[in-house]
């Protein structure tokens, strides 16, 4: 029952992809869209079945490894297609397929009329399949395969509008940045496989305790590299804002709800290694803390509606990294879930606006759209409140526990704690800056000119219904846990990834963190209100800082100078110094020489029987003589 649900969950989206691909133009675009939606919906049903099955079992038995077939087997080394169903993977399966289903449904309306809808929906199903493979993977190999496929499908979706050079460049950037992480992660896996002689998670983690501390640290660092790249954390974060060139539902699916949270999943899945390499765990937490600040600051000056949300995503994932790095895995995962709800909601509400304004994304042109789209305005407001983390919205319950978890962790915990609190202030500021600029007030001339209502409504039902559902989830989704009084999520995940004692906040720590976080969030909102809604004061301008923020702290420029230019120079040099004189000259010559030898061999083939018999006899004689002489 449980494995069946998991397999259905995994294979349904793949079947959808194959069906759309193989049918080609024989099915209409709308059919393709619905096939994709249905396939992800089936996956969700499968995930629910697996979840229900696990619920019925005692907590320590909730782990099922199901192997479809073993490809290669040698001793303990077994390479095969196997899925692992345990509380952690089911938790992720529900989020990926559930939120994924809503987003694919939203795409039906959003992508309506695009020239290559079928391709889009084939990719969407394929992405969901890859992501499910990643979270369900029952051994290191499958996890790695899912990890790679997720990178591939994200590349395909970011570059979906392949006629736009920016989109193609963004896709390439995302792929290359991710490949860097893939490489470090694969190296870490190889070390584990080499020492454990097995692909099994359990054996691999047990192996890590026999490794030297340097080796464990390197393995953990490799894993962290993969997580950082996939989750767009500093220093491998620059691809995420650019990835906003893809269609908006793609941003919602990949760059908010699912793929970018894979890093958090990876840390939770491989937590035994991070627990042995505590330093690297703290590096992960520190990365998260740094990212949440940097991203929050950069978000303050962005003018593209999707980029603001993208930076906010980076910042929120920073919180998750902070939690997971400190050992509060359940809190990280919980925030991952609520974030999936409200961030997908924000992206999709923004998508409604963009859709209604014929593709416009600059917030300075959107002023006053709220009057024309009241429901979207409400949805966006709910998403914003959840993002800032005000009670009773979802973000409040998940984010505050992470902030509180930082308090227990020695002296550096206090640094993280302060960072996280400053982050809440920034969140309130940039979120409501966006909200106040876009929605309230009189519609601007641009909006009046370009606003195009969909049959008098704010969007087709396929778009508004998912937004509605997510709006509800963004309100109530957090109520399933209210630490420390009511902790079902932590209990659920405990058999796989038990929260470390050090990251378990006391009640008063929870209380004080919550109070401060809410107060600082409100302060941020208030400042935003003063600056952007009431416009009582001019926005303070510090030219140097402003420029630094607009250039996103010069990360792109730095990478350009540090990596791109030297590599390009080396490549240019090796073209002139090596390829042209050596390869291009010697390559064909080598081929010609080989062919010449081949012609020589062919000449031996005279077609005459006497030659053949001679060769036979000659070979025989050589054999006999050699045997006689060395016997």
């Amino acid at each position: 029952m449980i494995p069946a649900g998991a397999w259905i969950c995994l294979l349904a989206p793949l079947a959808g992809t194959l069906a759309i691909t193989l049918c080609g133009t024989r099915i209409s675009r709308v059919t393709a869209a619905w096939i994709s939606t249905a396939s992800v919906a089936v996956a969700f049903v499968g995930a629910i079945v697996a979840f229900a099955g696990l619920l019925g079992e005692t907590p320590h038995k909730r782990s099922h490894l199901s192997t479809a077939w073993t490809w290669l087997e040698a001793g303990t080394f077994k390479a095969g297609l196997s899925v692992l169903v345990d509380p952690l993977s089911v938790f992720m399966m529900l989020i990926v397929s559930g939120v994924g289903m809503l987003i694919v449904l939203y795409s039906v309306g959003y992508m309506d009329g695009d020239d290559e809808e079928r391709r889009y929906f084939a990719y969407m199903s394929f992405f969901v399949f890859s992501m499910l493979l990643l979270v369900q993977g029952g051994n290191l190999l499958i996890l790695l395969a899912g990890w790679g496929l997720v990178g591939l499908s994200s590349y395909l979706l970011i570059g979906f509008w392949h006629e736009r050079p920016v989109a193609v460049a963004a896709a390439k950037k995302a792929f290359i940045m991710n490949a860097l992480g893939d490489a470090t992660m694969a190296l870490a896996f190889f070390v584990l496989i080499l020492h454990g002689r097995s692909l099994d998670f359990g054996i691999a983690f047990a192996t890590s305790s026999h490794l030297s501390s340097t080796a464990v640290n390197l393995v953990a660092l490799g894993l962290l590299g993969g997580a950082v790249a996939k989750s767009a954390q500093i220093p491998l974060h620059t691809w995420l804002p650019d990835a906003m060139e893809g269609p908006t539902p793609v941003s919602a699916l990949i760059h908010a709800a699912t793929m970018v949270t894979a890093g958090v999943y990876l840390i939770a899945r491989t937590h035994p290694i991070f627990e042995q390499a505590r330093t690297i765990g703290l590096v992960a937490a520190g990365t998260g803390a740094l990212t949440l600040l940097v991203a929050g600051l950069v978000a303050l000056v962005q003018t593209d509606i999707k980029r603001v949300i993208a930076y906010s995503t980076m910042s929120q994932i920073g919180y998750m990294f902070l939690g997971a790095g400190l050992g509060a895995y359940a809190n990280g995962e919980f925030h991952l879930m609520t974030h999936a709800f409200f961030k997908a909601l924000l992206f999709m509400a923004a998508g409604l606006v963009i859709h209604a304004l014929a593709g416009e994304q600059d917030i300075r042109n959107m002023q006053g759209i709220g009057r024309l789209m009241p429901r979207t305005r409400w949805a966006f407001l709910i998403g914003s409140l959840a993002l800032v983390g005000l009670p009773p919205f979802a973000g409040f319950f998940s984010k505050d526990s992470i902030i509180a978890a930082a308090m227990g962790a020695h002296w550096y915990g206090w640094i993280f704690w302060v960072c996280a609190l400053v982050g809440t202030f920034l969140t309130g500021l940039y979120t409501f800056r966006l909200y106040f600029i876009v929605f309230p007030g009189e519609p601007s001339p641009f909006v009046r000119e370009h606003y195009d209502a969909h049959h008098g409504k704010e969007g087709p039902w396929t778009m508004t219904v998912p937004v509605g559902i997510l709006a509800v989830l963004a309100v109530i989704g957090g109520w399933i846990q209210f630490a420390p009084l009511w902790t079902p999520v932590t209990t659920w995940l405990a058999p796989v990834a038990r929260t470390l004692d050090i990251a378990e906040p006391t009640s008063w720590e929870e209380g004080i963190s919550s109070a401060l976080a809410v107060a600082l969030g409100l302060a941020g909102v208030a400042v935003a209100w003063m600056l952007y809604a009431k416009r009582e004061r001019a926005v303070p301008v510090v030219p140097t800082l402003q420029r630094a923020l607009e250039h996103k702290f010069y990360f792109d420029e730095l990478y350009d100078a540090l990596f791109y230019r030297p590599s390009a120079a080396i490549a240019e040099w090796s073209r002139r110094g090596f390829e042209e004189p050596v390869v291009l000259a010697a390559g064909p010559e080598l081929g010609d020489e080989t062919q010449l030898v081949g012609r020589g061999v062919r000449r031996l083939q005279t077609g005459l029987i006497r030659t053949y018999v001679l060769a036979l006899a000659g070979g025989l004689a050589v054999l006999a003589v050699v045997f006689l002489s060395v016997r």
Partner: protein
Amino acid sequence: MIHRPSVDWFALAPALILLGASGLALLEAVLVPRGARKVVAAATTALGFLGGIVAAIWLYVDSVHGERVIANALYRDRWAALAIVIVCCVGLASVAVSWSERMSERHIAEYYALLAAAGAGMAFFVGAANLMTLFLSLEWFSLCLYVMCAVDSELEGSLEAGLKYLIVGSFGSAALLFGSALVYGATGKLGFVEIAQATATGGLSHDALLVVGLALVLAGLGFKASAAPFHMWTPDVYEGAPTPVTAFMSAATKTVALVVALRVLVTAFPQEARLWTWAVAGIAVASLAIGNLAALVQRDVKRMLAYSSISHAGFMLIAVATGTPLGGRALMYYLIPYSAIAFGGFAVVAARERELGVPVTVDNLAGFGWERPFLGISMTLFMLGSAGLPFTGGFVGKFYAFSAAYDHGWIWLVIVGVVATIVSLYYYLGVVRAMYMRPAEELRLAAVAGGSPPREALLQAAVGAAFVVTFGSFFAVQPLIELARHAASSLPF
């Protein structure tokens, strides 16, 4: 009075069933009216091969512990049974591909009778347990093949192929026979096991007669496996023989020759392992070098595939040369995708040949992939499989052969194999390029010349089966390796 041995009829079943089918087909050549003769004879032979498959599978299941039966003249074990399964599957596919071959209708029933008889001889050959049965069964299937090569007696090429094979083959058989005689002279024994015992007890491992005998036996078997330098007949015979016969020979003959070679070497000559492992490694290197280099410059696809089969013999001899259980497993596994790849390649060539009515060259393959999508894709897969790229069994086969060599400490042999693979990519991908990537005007020329005769369902089915095996053996590695492991456990490594 001669003592009559007890006969294990079940062990003989595959050979007997095929022999029965052969006899029946021969009777049909005179008793069945001409119109129905082809159908009846083909059906009889197909049933014979099917029966052979069933009996061999049964034998495999039922012979967990290998033993010698019928006065210790024949092995009844899994090593032989699995080889018989491969041979019979190839035989069945050959019947399908032969169906539409433009052969003279006069002797069509005899052709099928010979095919079944060759299968029977091979089934006997792989079980051979002493030098007598070895030579007897070798001649048995060789004689059938000589005639089958020349069956198209109106074609000069076919006659020439048959004649060349006969004369050079006689020489090879003579080498084997003479070698057997020397070994018998040295040890006084015929049975493989007894030869090894006599060598060990009599301290004969340095005996001149014995080592020269070994060299001759090696040459005789190497001839059948078309390993260099005993390979010279291969391109001419493969090119001249009717393509279905070539397909059968390339897959089945090579299978049985290699399977028997490993059995003879590890059973009868374990004392001389030092000699023959190096000798076989040398033969493997020669085969890889000559097969691949000569294939580079071929334009005729059948000749190219013939050289490719020589190079495959080299890869499989790498596994044989190690003389270890892993080598045995590697050989048996490799043979499964190899048979499918070699057979499938020639079957596709047969299809093109019938379409054009002229020998298939790299040039007139142009556009084939677009005209016949299924055959084109299949041929592409066979070529990739020959080159040993992933998603084909060829990849895993090479992987196992190389790991056997690595395990044996012969890294140099692995390097030779890898270099050979690199060279081979050129001509394998050349075929793919010819089928798909020619300039438009060349493609159109070929299409006009080709026309579109009706599709042959039977040939397509055979190609489809080869496709499934080539592709499937990559994914079903574990079960196939298990089969091979059980089979190899019958040999006394």
